[in-house]
Every structure is written in structure tokens, then in C-alpha cells.
């Protein structure tokens, strides 16, 4: 299933937006969105309570690339992503986005969380309009941008709903629209589909690829689902058990656009086998410590 299918299912949307001239979303120039993770180590606490979460991680993400970070639970994936987002300061090393060292959170690095990150007291539209408003847009402009992106994720008819009334999958689509409404050069996604059931998750994956191909944003996507990583990524970066290091960087040669059936493709299964091996090893490793 893809965006088109979603839109077909909601014929009301087109009519809904009538009369408001939605700005056609700009495409991010492919030269923007270069992420450099330069020998980063991250420790929590000090002294005896010291806990190394990430160790000497290095990664270079080209503009417009879709990179999946795969690793066992607790290996430091979220920590590394949060340091790119600007929430966590690396203890050593440096992170640069388009050449500028990351020091604090910013709208050019959009963040999508696993769940429960929408403002429950704002309507779907207000949630999406929040970024543009903060960026200095006036109410009308922000609303227009919000409606554009809600249209793109197929949720325009839910514009006036509060998040609690939406299903988990719909909430995550709002979260993605909210991040995109700031036209970020990098989209940071931390297990965004981890809380969804298998079918909804599959739909969301296709949906995301569709959006990505449309916007060309760089995506850094954290998951521990092997199928998901291979299905989505240009590259799958496998991290070691805690403290996380990058242990393997697997380019995925599968053609795009990717269809759900690809998971039963031989090339897919081959990469999956390799990932299984790596992860299994790391999981055992983690347990034995």
C-alpha cells in the first residue's frame, strides 16, 4: 500500500481543503542534510555510577540518504540519535550537520518518537502547525502549512480531532507530518513504528518511503526489527551491544520503490541472515554480561 492508496480511501480530503491554497511542499535540496558522527563517545553519570552508552561511534550520512541503525536493546541507539538531535552532549567527539556542530535541538533536525509525543491538548492541526508558528509564521500561514502536510499523510479530515481519539498509526503519521512541517534537512526517527501492530507497521513503512522519495530528506532511523531496517534503508548500520559501537555497515542494494513482497526476495533474505547472525551474537553477548 502506498500514499496513493491512502488518499483514495479518503475522498473527502480533497473537498475538505477547497478554498485554501495549500503551498506545494518544497523539496529539500539534496545537498542539505549531511550528518557526520565523528568518533563519538557518550557517558552517563560520573565516578562509580559511570555508564558508557556509546563508544567511538563513527558514521557519515550523505544528504538524502536513508540510514537504519539496528542493534540490540540498550545498545545506545537512542542515545546516539538524541545526541544528533541535540538533547545529549557527546562526552567525546563531535557531531556535525551540514558542517555545523550540533549544540542544541533545532527545527532543521526533525524528531519522531516512538509514541506519546503529540501535545494531547492541541488538535491534530495545531500539533502540526506548532513548528511553523515557533519559526515565526503567523497563524494563517502556519495553519496552511499544517493542512498541506496533513493532506500529505492523509489525515486532513482529522484536523480538528485531539490525538487521543486517533489510532496509534494515525498518531505516528501526525508526528511525522509535524516534523516535516519544519522542512527539516534531517529526519531523526526513534523506533517510530515500534508500538504498532504488524499490519499497521507495514503500511506505515511504505507510507514513509513514499514521503521520503517525495521530500528527499536525510533519514536516520532507529529500529531493532531486522525486516524493517532492510526494507527501509539504503544502508543498515549494525551496532554492538552496550556500549554501542558501529560493528557493520551493510549497503542494501534492493531496488526502489520497494514493495511489501520484497521481504521474501532472495537478496533480502540473504541480508536478513547476516543481520540475524550479528544481532544474535550481540544479544547473547549482552545477556552474558
Amino acid at each position, binding site marked *: 500500500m502506498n500514499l496513493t492508496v491512502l488518499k483514495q480511501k479518503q475522498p473527502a480530503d480533497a473537498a475538505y481543503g477547497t478554498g485554501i491554497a495549500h503551498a506545494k511542499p518544497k523539496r529539500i535540496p539534496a545537498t542539505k542534510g549531511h550528518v557526520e558522527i565523528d568518533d563519538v563517545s557518550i557517558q552517563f553519570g560520573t565516578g562509580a555510577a559511570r555508564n558508557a552508552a556509546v563508544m567511538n561511534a563513527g558514521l557519515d550520512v550523505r544528504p538524502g540518504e536513508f540510514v537504519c541503525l539496528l542493534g540490540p536493546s540498550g545498545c545506545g541507539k537512542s542515545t546516539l540519535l538524541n545526541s544528533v*538531535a541535540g*538533547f545529549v552532549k557527546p562526552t567525546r567527539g563531535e557531531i556535525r550537520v551540514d558542517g555545523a556542530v550540533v549544540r542544541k535541538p533545532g*527545527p532543521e533536525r526533525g*524528531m519522531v518518537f516512538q509514541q*506519546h509525543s503529540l501535545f494531547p491538548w*492541541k*488538535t491534530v492541526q495545531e500539533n502540526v502547525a506548532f513548528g511553523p508558528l515557533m519559526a515565526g509564521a503567523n497563524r494563517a500561514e502556519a495553519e496552511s502549512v499544517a493542512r498541506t502536510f496533513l493532506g500529505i499523510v492523509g489525515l486532513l479530515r482529522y484536523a480538528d480531532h485531539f490525538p*487521543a*481519539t486517533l489510532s496509534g498509526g494515525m498518531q505516528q503519521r501526525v508526528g511525522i507530518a509535524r516534523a516535516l512541517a519544519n522542512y527539516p534537512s534531517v529526519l531523526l526517527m526513534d523506533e517510530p513504528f515500534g508500538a504498532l501492530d504488524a499490519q499497521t507497521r507495514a503500511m506505515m513503512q511504505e507510507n514513509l518511503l513514499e514521503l521520503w522519495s517525495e521530500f528527499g530528506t536525510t533519514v536516520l532511523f532507529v529500529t531493532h526489527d531486522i525486516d524493517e531496517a532492510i526494507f527501509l534503508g539504503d544502508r543498515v548500520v549494525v551496532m554492538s551491544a552496550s556500549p554501542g559501537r558501529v560493528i557493520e555497515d551493510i549497503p542494501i542494494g534492493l531496488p526502489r520503490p520497494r514493495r511489501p513482497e520484497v521481504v521474501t526476495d532472495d537478496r533480502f533474505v540473504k541480508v536478513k541472515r547476516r543481520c540475524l547472525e550479528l544481532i544474535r551474537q550481540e544479544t547473547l553477548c549482552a545477556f552474558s554480561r
Partner: protein
Amino acid sequence: MLSVLAAVILWQTASEQGWSFILNFENVPTPLVVGNEFVAQLATSDFYTHVLVSLRRIAISYVLAAFLGILCGILMGRFRIMEDILSVYIEILRPIPAVAWIPLAILMLPTEESSIIFITFLGAFFPIVINTVAGVEQTPPLLLRAARSLGASNTAILRHVILPGALPSIVTGLSIGMGVSWFSLLAGEIISGQYGIGYFTWTAYTLVEYPRIIIGMLVIGALGTFSTMLVRKGAGPLLRWQSKEGHRA
């Protein structure tokens, strides 16, 4: 409704017969007598004055308590240093009942009206402050991160994230505070020599007018319930996002 009727009938019989088994109903007026007296009171203008004076006192104290309570609560919830300083005072003063404040309030405040308002204020203030702090402190860190990564400034975060997130807790504080302020008002009005529904009840008591005492009790109860309901209902539209069905009209 039926159970209320049953209770009233029981009360009527008990008072008429003058039951006296543990509870002594000998001198308790019957509901009929109380009802008649209530109708009689409704025909006097004094009765309305008592109610209005009390409502006025509640209004002033409550608005004051809500304003200062929410302000202090936010400061304490946001700034560690404010919490360190203020929470000590609050924890020392909070357990002192309103009645115990009467002498000091008389002594320290310029007018009697202000003493009563002070006592009523205290009743409402503490629950509001405590619930505001709790509300502010429980803001989900994930929402703070989300707001920050969407480019929100500190004031924007206060306005768009912390305040609305704390609102359910603040509303709880406001409605508890409303209830407690009526308790305190009553204590305060005992010292008042003139008006107020608490004074009405207390005077009835000094004159041993049992029907009026019961009317006073019920009126206070009703006013308390009603105003608490008003607070809850008033906050309803702001909290519609909590309901599973709500979407903005």
C-alpha cells in the same frame, strides 16, 4: 433520589417520635419544620444578604488564591530554588486548620473583612499550590523534547506545553480549593459580627434555633457543592482533549 426520600421520612418519624437510641432525636426539628422555616427565610431579604456576603467573600478569596496559587505553583515547579524556599513555609503552614488561624488573622490584618478573606484564602491556596506544582513537575519530558526540537523558546514551552499539561492537575487543585475555602469561610465568619451564611448559622446556634442551624448547614453544603461543580464545569472546555471522543467544535 429514592434514598433521599427514605432518609427524610426516617428523619421525620425519628424527630416526631423523639427517638433516642445512641442518636437522640428528641430536640431535632422535623423536616417539615425545617422546610417551613426555610420558606420563611426565603421571604426575608436578610437571608439573601447573608448568602451574597458569603459569596462575595468566597469570590475575592478564591480569585486571589487561584492567582497566587497558580503563580507560586509554576515558579516552584519550574525553579528548584523557588521550590526549596517556598515548600518549607507551605509544609509548615498547611497543616494548621483554618479555625486556628482566627486569632492571628484578627490580630494581623487591618479589617475584619480582610481577616475573614485571609482565612478563606488560606483554605483555597494550599490545595491549588500543591496541585499546580504536581502538575508542572509531571510534564512528560518527551513533550518538552518534542517542543524544543520544534524550535520552541522557554516561554513558548511554558505557554504551550507546561501550562496545558498541568491544567488537569490545576483544575483538581482549584476544585478541591473551592471546597476547602467554604470550610474555612465558615470558620472565619464565626468571628464576623454581621453577615454571611456562616454567621447566620452561628447566630442560629447562639439563639438555639435548631431549624435555622439545619438550614444553614444545608445551604452551606449546597453552595459548596454548587461552586465546586461550577469550577469543574468551567474548566470542562479546556480539558476536552482528555475525553476519548472530544474534538474541537
